[in-house]
């Protein structure tokens, strides 16, 4: 079963629609027990990291998320779902995040149009099954004002040029997270979710 964490994120339905279109029946939940039972997890996200952290904490989901990731279950974070994995964010005057990956979330520098909004190329830096069938430099849809700076550069699976190179995907074992929105990125995005679900293997069918 693919479990999508429901903490009120605006793009929850789009993510669920994308998974459904691939032929799976996602479970949408905010229950701690259901999350702990999940075989593969998607953490959607759009908006502000501070609000997301607050919602996750209020629902008691922060520790269960740490647990499923620590156990190596396939986990996909999208946009804010990527950012909250890190130590902390500059957003909203500075907030602590989940601290699963060391690094900071920073605001895009002045001089650029903010948000970074639209389709941009994703340059693959690691070879990984999540990219199967997706050409290097394929376009994905972005919308964000903050970006992640992982301390461990070897986690950077892809980057994207927006006046400066931005880390657009991280991979650590079965933990995958992207700054772009696969659910809004046409066929390449669907393919990426399909690759993710295949990583989880037969368990999710």
């Amino acid at each position, binding site marked *: 079963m693919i479990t999508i964490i429901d903490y009120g994120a*605006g*793009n929850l*339905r*789009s993510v669920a*629609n*994308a998974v*459904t*279109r691939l032929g799976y029946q996602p479970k949408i939940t905010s229950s701690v027990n259901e999350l702990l039972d999940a075989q593969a997890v998607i953490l959607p996200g*759009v*908006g*502000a990291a501070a609000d997301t952290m607050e919602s996750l904490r209020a629902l008691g989901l922060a520790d269960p998320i740490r647990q499923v990731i620590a156990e190596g279950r396939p986990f996909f974070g999208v946009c804010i779902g990527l950012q909250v994995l890190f130590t902390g964010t500059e957003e909203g005057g500075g907030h602590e995040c989940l601290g699963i990956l060391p690094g900071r979330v920073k605001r895009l520098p*002045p001089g650029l*149009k*903010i*948000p*970074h*909004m*639209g*389709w*941009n*190329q994703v340059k693959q830096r690691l070879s990984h099954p999540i990219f199967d069938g997706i050409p290097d430099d394929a*376009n994905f*849809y*972005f*919308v*964000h*004002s903050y970006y992640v700076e992982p301390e461990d550069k070897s986690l950077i699976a892809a980057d994207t*040029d*927006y006046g400066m190179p931005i880390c657009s995907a991280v991979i650590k074992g079965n933990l995958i997270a992207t700054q772009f929105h696969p*659910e*809004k*990125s*046409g*066929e390449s*995005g*669907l393919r990426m979710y399909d690759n993710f679900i295949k990583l989880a293997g037969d368990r999710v069918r």
Partner: protein
Amino acid sequence: MLTKRIIPCLDVKDGRVVKGTSFTRLRDAGDPVELASFYYKEGADELVFLDISATPEGRDTMVDVVERISGEVSMPLTVGGGLRSPSDMRRMLRAGADKVTINTAAVLQPRLIQESADKFGSQCIVIAIDAKRIEDSQKPCWEVYTHSGQQPTGIDALAWARQSVTLGAGELLLTSIDADGHRAGYDIELTRAISEAVTVPVIASGGAGALEDLYQALVTGKADAVLAASIFHYGSHSIHETKEYLMKKGLPIRI
């Protein structure tokens, strides 16, 4: 490099598309879901749906339309028309819209921009500005109009654009009332003035008649995206042809 977006706009009334129904290739060109799928396959970068229903029933239908479109296509969707409150916006966002666009309601009550940006994030708040050139002014100057371009407000478009962004708009959808419907090109001077005045992306709208017009809005007008209705709906140019044209002229375009 961030690509320039090409955005078809569809007007929906009581759940039916009221422009762009001349597609002979489609089974039911009045069906917004079918048109959305068509544009998705053609390579549109985003879709804008404007609800022009005048009744509460029409608006309820729009929620259902957005749900069905979001179930069919994996691309960004912006929805507007008649949204007055955060709860109106929440319905559309929960139905699967990525962004909502507001115009009259924001001018009447600028605090609404801040309130909705705080609730949903700036990235999904698009402020639509309908602007008309003031003829007898010394330097180029545009006035904001509301109520579908019918009501002058006395507000300067540049000042309103800046204020909208300060209040939390994540994007501006800029329509020139003078150019709209004439198919003789965007108001490039207006587009450029607004694009240079704000730090958020600007979508140029109103006046597209030829592919060169789109190019000019993106290059001379410095817009981040172009929106068009009739040139796509009435089949004078396909999305694919448009994108090839712009790419050949050296613009970053997603094909």
